[in-house]
């Protein structure tokens, strides 16, 4: 018998979306990275090509159809060509999420031949100076060149710029850059405060005024563009009164596979204590998805506490994000404190209040920022 409110195995639907984080190695050191702080601990345990293909085949059999190949920087692996070609044959819509570093014309041609459907290219800013500072690299010109190549090979291109306090005032220039690159979709999502972005939250969260300005610019641009370029603008969930429907519910559509084979219901779940996440080396995806304790832990609503349990919006937002609830309140089964009904909502309100302070000068802020790099990650691994 299943508990009231927990879905019976027959009603659990298969995954639709697989995110394959094939490596956490990355030439960039972005200050808002959502990879786990201790990512460097996976370096010696990465899955082989065959292990990836086996997991992808099993997920496809359950009905998964969208595939993101991401990282880290996925292009640091030399089997991306094989993974793309095989996944495409399996019937996935294959999306490569890349910083563009290492995307040569030769590789682009091979990906095209293999059936890659889409490329998502990330930029840190519309200016060389800030792009290179935020990623702690000199990559701006290279990315421009890669964007031209992507167009030349006629890929649908999603341009992704993570927004935050330091670059959001460049909204207009960012949009002009996107238009000149002929991007099909532009994602301008504020950084979400997990992992490295959580460490740097104070320096990343924009003020209300910054957000309002950015939104006006975005709406004006959208009105001019029509169907030509689709524009997504996402404000930080801290500014909302209700939490995001994180992952459309735990174990509902999304399956993340980390470089070391850990199967996770979201990018961040590795941080949650008390859950033993299954590894695709030892388990098939069917068992992982339907039977593992970890994937069933927050399915349905029987795990909910008040105020979620009696809330009439629980089917809409599923109580928000488990990781955010854990990070901020110490208990993953609590309501996401973004919700104004949460007894911990003051934690969010305080962080938002702090973000209304006048912006410190770049010279003051920059030395305080923690970069995502291997040295820092190893330090976090030991903490």
């Amino acid at each position, binding site marked *: 018998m299943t508990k009231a409110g927990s879905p019976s195995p027959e009603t659990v639907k*298969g995954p*639709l979306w697989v995110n394959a984080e094939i490596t956490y190695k990355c030439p960039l050191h972005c200050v808002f990275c959502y990879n786990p702080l201790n990512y460097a601990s996976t370096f010696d345990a990465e899955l082989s090509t065959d292990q990836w293909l086996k997991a992808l085949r099993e997920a496809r*059999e*359950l*009905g998964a*159809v*969208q595939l993101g190949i991401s990282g880290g920087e996925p292009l640091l692996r030399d089997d991306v060509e094989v993974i793309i070609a095989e996944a495409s044959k399996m*019937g996935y*819509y294959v*999306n490569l999420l890349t910083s563009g570093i290492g995307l040569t014309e030769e590789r682009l041609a091979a990906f095209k031949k293999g059936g890659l*459907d*889409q490329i*998502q290219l990330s930029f840190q800013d519309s200016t060389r100076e800030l792009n290179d500072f935020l990623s702690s690299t000199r990559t701006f010109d290279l990315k421009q060149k890669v964007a031209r190549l992507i167009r030349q090979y*006629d890929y*649908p291109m*999603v341009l992704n710029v993570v927004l935050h306090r330091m670059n959001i005032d460049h909204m207009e220039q960012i949009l002009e850059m996107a238009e000149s690159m002929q991007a*099909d*979709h532009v*994602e301008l999502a504020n950084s979400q405060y997990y992992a490295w972005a959580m460490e740097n939250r104070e320096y990343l969260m924009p003020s209300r005024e910054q957000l309002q300005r950015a939104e006006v610019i975005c709406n004006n641009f959208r009105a001019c563009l029509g*169907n030509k370029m*689709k524009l997504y603008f996402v404000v930080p969930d801290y500014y909302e009164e209700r939490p995001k429907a994180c992952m459309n519910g735990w174990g509902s559509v999304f399956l993340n596979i980390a470089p070391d084979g850990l199967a996770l219901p979201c990018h961040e779940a590795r941080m949650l204590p008390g859950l033993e996440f299954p590894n695709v080396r030892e388990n098939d995806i069917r068992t992982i998805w339907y039977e593992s304790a970890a994937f069933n832990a927050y399915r349905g609503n029987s795990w909910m506490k008040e105020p979620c349990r009696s809330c009439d919006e629980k089917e809409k937002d599923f109580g928000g994000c488990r990781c955010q609830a854990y990070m901020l309140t110490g208990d993953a089964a609590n309501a996401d404190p973004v919700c104004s009904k949460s007894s911990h909502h003051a934690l969010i309100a305080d962080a938002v209040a702090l973000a209304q302070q006048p912006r410190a000068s770049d010279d003051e802020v920059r030395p305080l920022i923690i970069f995502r790099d291997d040295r820092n990650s190893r330090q976090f691994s030991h903490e």
Partner: protein
Amino acid sequence: MSLTNNQPLRFARQYKLQWETAQDAYVLLYPEGLIKLTGSAGEILKRIDGNASVLDIINSLQVAYPGIDLQQDVIEFLEHAHDKGWITVA
């Protein structure tokens, strides 16, 4: 913008139609998402091949489903798909 009857239609560059056994439905795939189509939406869109026009699609459906007047519904759905940017004139 409305579609003319005789121009061939194709999917927009980033859209891909695919039959999914697991969902027992056609799905429309695109960057960052997918749409599970209803039975009739799937029947209409699967006839888009870069050659068939609005009229061809209506005729083909009329043969598959004789005795039902579906012309207006098909035109409305194709215009919806066109407004959404899923399909375009080939």
